[in-house]
């Protein structure tokens, strides 16, 4: 039986299209109105709200919680002081990525970890003798992402301290008299916040947010808009841009964090002697430069793209709706050098953009490659160049 989220009464009332999809066993809105691009612009230009409750959430607490997580998570959780959040990943012992997620550190000994898929056993089975408890709280907590340049102004009417909240900071507050946690996090690459609330209080908090946003043009946005936003933001999607190593049948479906472009997570690795799962493999991969790929952004050459379609007598299609499939990438000699996993026409960049992995020697921004499109039922290779992720990175995101 498909579940509904704690905000369902409100999201269903606003869903004009009747389009729903399933996310981790929950009904979520695909798009509220006929245009997901319009919802997308609410986030890029105003303020939008997404019900992101279906994420898995685990409360990990206890005297040894930090020690435990510092061995489980590849990024050093000790650098995340209480009152902050951290984007992190966890690996298997061969250094392949299992998943990524955000961890909120509520206190020295209390963490909330999010993940896209179930991970309880992976963590619980490795506690051993440490004084740590892990509790699944996925259904107990509703999460509301309030994102966009106006999100601060709207939320500050409810929680004045958000004006001071740094990027990836968290704060406890009340909305409509109900306790919430507000984190300056999101999956849009824009200024934005997420509100974490007990499920029973979800509707009260939803109503409070909407009341505060009155007159600000706030719109709810669905998964269609979310997928657009996250590609521009260079944020990976499990099942689209990478798969969990746990359930892969071969290494072609596995990725290391360095291959996914997360080298920045390990800047202090030499000084940090912390043992963690996958460390040995990660250190070796770094030293031997043995990464097979590097995740990069691709920006398609607009003239070449237009030429390919126009010479076939077609109007060059420029669709903002993301496609999550493999698209082959070649070099100038037409040797295959990688593949793109997410592609779209970006409204803020006015180009086709893709998240792609290429051979590490081609990962330098500006490297020229060719992306394969299907035109008139045959393959055409269109020029593109490699660009640094995120492809869209407004100052307000961290300011």
């Amino acid at each position, binding site marked *: 039986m498909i579940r509904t989220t704690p905000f369902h009464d409100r999201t269903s009332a606003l869903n004009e299209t009747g389009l729903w999809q399933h996310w981790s066993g929950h009904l979520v809105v695909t798009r509220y109105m006929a245009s997901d691009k319009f919802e997308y612009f609410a986030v890029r*230009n105003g303020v939008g709200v997404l019900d992101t409750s279906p994420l898995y959430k685990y409360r990990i607490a206890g005297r040894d919680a930090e020690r435990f997580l510092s061995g489980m998570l590849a990024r050093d959780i000790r650098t995340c002081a209480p009152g902050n959040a951290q984007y992190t990943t966890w690996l298997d012992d061969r250094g392949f990525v299992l998943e990524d997620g955000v961890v909120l550190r509520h206190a020295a000994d209390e963490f909330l970890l999010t993940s896209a898929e179930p991970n309880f056993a992976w963590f619980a089975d490795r506690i051993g003798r440490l004084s740590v408890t892990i509790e699944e709280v996925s259904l107990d907590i509703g999460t509301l992402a309030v994102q966009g340049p106006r999100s601060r102004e709207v939320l500050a009417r409810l929680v004045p301290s958000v004006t001071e909240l740094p990027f990836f900071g968290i704060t406890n507050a009340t909305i409509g008299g109900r306790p919430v946690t507000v984190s300056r996090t999101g999956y849009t690459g824009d200024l934005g916040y997420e509100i974490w609330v007990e499920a029973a209080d979800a509707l009260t908090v939803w109503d409070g947010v909407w009341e505060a946003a009155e007159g600000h043009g706030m719109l709810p946005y669905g998964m269609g808009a979310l997928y657009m936003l996250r590609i521009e933001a260079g944020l990976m999607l499990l099942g689209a841009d990478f798969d969990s190593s746990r359930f892969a049948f071969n290494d072609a479906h596995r990725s290391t964090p360095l291959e996914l472009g997360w080298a920045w997570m390990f800047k202090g690795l030499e000084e940090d002697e912390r043992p963690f799962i996958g460390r040995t493999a990660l250190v070796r991969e770094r030293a031997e430069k043995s990464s097979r790929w590097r995740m990069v952004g691709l920006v398609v050459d607009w003239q070449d793209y237009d030429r390919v379609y126009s010479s076939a007598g077609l*109007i060059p299609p420029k669709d903002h709706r993301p496609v999550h499939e493999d698209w082959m990438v070649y070099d100038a000699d037409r040797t295959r050098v990688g593949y793109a996993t997410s592609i779209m026409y970006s409204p803020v960049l*006015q180009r086709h953009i893709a998240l792609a992995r290429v051979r590490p020697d081609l990962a330098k921004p500006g490297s020229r490659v060719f992306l394969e499109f299907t035109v008139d039922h045959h393959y055409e290779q269109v020029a593109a160049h490699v660009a640094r992720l995120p492809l869209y990175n407004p100052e307000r995101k961290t300011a």
Partner: protein
Amino acid sequence: MSTDRYDAIVIGGGHNGLVNGAYLAKGGLRTLILERRHLVGGAAITEELQPGFWFTTFSYALSLLRPQIIHELELTKHGFLPLQMSTRFAPGDDGDHLLFTRDHDENLREVARHSPHDADAYDQYGHDLDRVCQAIKPLLDTIPPDIFSDDPEEVVRLAALGSQLRSLDKRTLHNAVRLLTGSAADFLDDYFESELLKGWFASSGIIGSKVGPRSQGSGLVLLFHSLGEHDGSFGTWAFHKGGNGGFTQVLARAAQAFGAEIRLESPVVRVLTRDGEATGVALEDGTEIAADVVVSALDPRRTFLEMVDPRELPDDLVEDIRRLKFQGVSSKVNFALSGLPTHPTLGSGPELYRGFLNIGPSVDYLERAFDDAKYGWYSEHPYIDCAIQSTIDPDMAPPGKHVLSCFVQYTPYQLRESDWDAEREHMADRVQATLERFFPGFGGLVLQREVVTPLDIERTVGLSEGNIFAGEFLAPQMFFFRPAPGWSQYRTPIAGYYQCGSGTHPGGCVMGAPGRLAAGQILGDRSRARSG
């Protein structure tokens, strides 16, 4: 003469002047853009008329901007943000209406509600129009060949144009000619029976032009307004972040990033010449600034008859410019509103107003509005293209409040036995009364009203007779003949003096193509001169 010396001076910081200056600077020229007013943008500006309310004083939406300009001038780095409209709304009489969303199939049902016949006709019309646009569009990025020249290169270019036409299928070429020479109403009659739908589509055939939907020539205007592809999709319109003034600020930042200098409040009074060559410009305050190249982004009348002494020009050119038709017929009435209007059957939900709102419920309505103008008066029941931009860009008005831009026709520049200083508010009253008719209670929402007549457009922006295209879109004033036969390649008879305004090919709207093509010509001439 000032000690400053520039490679190029652009007169006028409207969108074409900015585009031109940006390309010249990108091409390595030390470029100065001189703007008469306190802000750049020309007729594409956004002004805060009272705290928190931002009005698009003149031009108010974006579609035709050539995508090359976005890429070549790297506009996205400077904040280019065309915000999508999610609906289009055309109220009819007696509470009838057409409301389109971004769901194509939903729209076909909406059309079928009015006429089952028109539903698939709607798709056929869209397809046929796309084919014509696809065929015409390369012309927007091409300097017209000079049909009066014996230069072999021009003969080759003309032949290339001919073979391009011959490559079209019969129906597309015929449709193109029918649109370029015929009336919007005749073309639409071939497809549709719903008066509301025809009125809606015919409206884009009269914008900015002294033609009715049944006049020959309205087809060309309709076609022109369908040629946009700025946002990756054909024919769509958007509101730029911060209005069209927000867009011209983006252009200004791009021009400056390429090294162009912009000087505000610097009205040019004349172009300096010596022995038939441009040597610089003189400002109103007496300052003279030297430059090898001077480019006028002004309209042709001012470019040829005011900025230079017509005696320096060939007689036939002067005569052609004097008889160029301007005949502005468009006004703006902009409102600050305390809330959203209420439609008698649909209410006041924001979903009605997230795009153009078209008051032109039938071809008859539009044609009658034109009848008034034919005899020198403004329409009793005007055509109005409304846009409540604050529903899309919340930064345009304070929370809960709105700005409404109304583009109004017909309001002829030349009034019979009166003038616009006397009629300005009476005209706006008619606009308000018309809005009251379709949205009862509208008057109670009005916090402020700004009225911009063709005379105001001329006075403020300098567009002759308030023509928004800097010269009407009439077949004899397009392509080879824009702005005058033999002078459609951005040069003038004065060496080093060029033109780049909307009065040159391909024409007006916030398209930027004249500025871009002119820059190509200027840079090409310089490189030919150096290598020759």
